[in-house]
């Protein structure tokens, strides 16, 4: 059993402490917006925020997440609507298949929190998620749009 705080809500989950956080989120908490892509923290599809910092949840154990604020794509927006990154994604028609985009959006939201007006080089350094459809041009446009929103 583990107590996790996900999107401000407390969950008591029947899960072993060494389970990757990704699977506790997807299977035990039932929040499937966070995606499995590689399981070895390479692709970034499973990116969530841990106390506001972007992490690849397949590489974090449940025990490491206990006591921290976990935010997933489902909890990124507020009651007033979408987060500005989600809004920019919508307006710039960024996703193609969309499978990597939850992780991409979470990585970008964390970047903008620390660096509200990132340069192209800042984006290159911080955003290392894989997108096989190849949405990078729209991702970059939307990051700048969100930064200016």
């Amino acid at each position, binding site marked *: 059993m583990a107590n996790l705080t996900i999107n401000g809500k407390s969950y008591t989950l029947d899960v072993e402490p060494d389970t990757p956080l990704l699977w506790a989120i997807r299977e035990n908490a039932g929040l499937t*917006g966070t995606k499995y892509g*590689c399981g070895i923290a390479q692709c970034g599809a499973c990116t969530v925020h841990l106390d506001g910092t972007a992490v690849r949840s397949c590489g974090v154990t449940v025990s490491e997440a206990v006591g921290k604020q976990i935010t997933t794509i489902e909890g990124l927006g507020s009651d007033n609507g979408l987060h500005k990154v989600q809004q920019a994604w919508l307006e710039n028609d960024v996703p193609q298949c969309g499978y990597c985009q939850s992780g991409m959006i979470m990585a970008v939201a964390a970047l903008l929190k620390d660096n509200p007006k990132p340069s192209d080089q800042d984006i290159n350094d911080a955003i290392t998620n894989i997108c096989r459809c190849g949405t990078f041009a729209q991702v970059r446009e939307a990051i700048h749009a969100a930064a200016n929103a």
Partner: protein
Amino acid sequence: MNQHVTPRLNRRSFVIGTAALGGGLALGLDIPFGGPQVVRAADGSPEVNAWVVIRPDDTVVIRIARSEMGQGSLTGLAQLVAEELACDWSKVTTEYPTPGQNVARKRVWGDFSTGGSRGIRSSQDYVRKGGAAARMMLIQAAADEWKVPVAECTAANSVITHKASGKTTTYGKVAEAAAKLSPPADVKLKDPKDWTLIGKGVKRLDTADKVTGAMIYGADIKLPNMLNAAIKDCPVTGGKLKSFDEAKIAGMKGVKKVIAVDGTAVAVVADTWWHAKTALDALPIVWDEGPNAKVSSESIGKWLAEGLDSGPAFVGNENGDAKAALASAVKKIEAVYNYPYQNHATMEPMNATALYTPDRCEVWCGTQNGEAAFAAVLEASGLPADKCEVHKLILGGGFGRRGQTDYVRQAVQVAKAMPGTPIKLLWSREEDMTHGRYHPITQCKLTGGFDADNNLTALHMRISGQSILFSLRPDALVNGKDPATFQGLAPSGEATIGYSVPNLLIEHSMRNPHINPGFWRGVNVNQNAIYLECFMDELANAVGQDPLEFRRKLMAKNPKHLAVLNAVAEKIGWGTPAPEGVYRGLAQLHGYGSYVAGAAEISVIDGTKIKVHRIVASTDPGYVVNPAQVERQIAGSFVYGLSALFYGGCTVKDGRIVETNFDSYNSMRIAEMPKVESIMIPSGGFWGGVGEPTIGVAAPAVLNAFFAATGKRIRSVPLRDQNITFA
């Protein structure tokens, strides 16, 4: 050591299987445009016809038979229907009909398969007719109600108007009556010049759920009492499952059952997938690796190299006498190129969820071919068509991989072992990388001959290597020849060579290693464009001519090929000085019915680090339905194509694929993405695809620019293996 594999019979059994259900495939397309019997959607709204359902609140539901995997054809197809329907685009929503419904209704929605960049081009005619017929019936229903001549009524934006009387109504109000009308016999489509929605870069219809995490992909399905399965197939294709020691994982948390699948694989079913995978990793498995266990990239390479010079070959394109002309050539140039296996590496690994009972089998999955998935369910379940169904979900990437149904069959077999319990089978990334349907491996020897005036008089291309059709669609072979091997090099059809050479011979020595080949975005244009377009540069260089001018002289009889090449040359500034340290390369091809060209600007640091600054790409697909999505397909195709060039390539060792995850099979990141400028020059009169053709020009344009920068000719992919990487 290399085994010549036996063709699989999936396709054949599919045809027989579906023919037995009532002749759907064999009878071809039966397009019904409504009729007196009103068919209702699940919510009770009337179908005006199979493509169009209109709700009382004026919502227009457009049925989409093809699969959406990111390429945007869900939106493009809806635009085609809506253009003729004259409906309010803001009220349009879409839904997938199921493969089971398609069979039950004599293939009313036609072909579900989504590959070969055919989503739009091969259904544009009948979906537009579906929209037009529905519009005519809706107008007729209003005219009947008003008792006025139908010719006096018009429709726009879902509103029908009778100008003389000033009466108006909406589609939602007359849909019920329209659905009862007989379909019109004569359906006329708009002249392309009158299109208002086709050609507009409207936003995609499927974005909202993709930015909130609400979109349900196959891997996200949840069903009551569902269990989860992880699977390992013999890592060497052609091998078998010998034994496994179930006792070693007995008592591991959550484990419900261990199941042998097909005699080649073993699956663990557990409460969660993480438990299933953890137990599967702990399960001792003994494989009989079979006759392919000693095959390696080296042994395959050697076998293919032999085919460059000896043994029989199929002729794909021939004119004049290339061998004689080469024998008498004043100057001869020869080069050997090769292209490796590539994995699709869709971001969402293969998966399918199956619920089997002795009376019914249902599957939920992402698939590029709903009908093939349906046939796989019938075959694996042993149940008839009226007791099976496939529920298609949005795909987390397809690129050709999800046109195959191996994962669907596995899911049904696992579910059959636990009747009444829905089971989600999800492949690990490692399983996905190990059991792909790989881009086929080939080599190519090219020989060009010049006369004393430096005119190219002869070209001989001999391709040696794997055929996709031999393995996946043996019914499509022509006297043993795989015509698709010559994609982009053919004398006629939708993928023709753009050059006229007086003596030409293009042939294929077919050699099929045991690694399963598949249709991989771009398919055979990926290597054929590298072979031909890089060699064209070699030939130009050999006679001291400019690569663009050299090509132009050979392209006079192919004005459409030439037009796209000229367009990129002009935009990239060919013939004008490039910025300091920047070098340019060109390539063109015809594939999937479209004419495309690319020009790259790169710089090279220390001879081993490439910065791709800019790619200009042009395409003439005949018509452009949604320019915003075409632009995204072009840019995306370069990410896929350049990832393959720089990082791709699956190595074979001990009969199995070495690269098992993104740490060894890397993919481009945003930092490596060049600026892509697309030029669309739709010349009209034909319909070409857009998802794939441009992928073929990315690699040769960059390789030609690399030669311009360094004087070094790269003839082997991936660059990873030559220690060349992105700067």
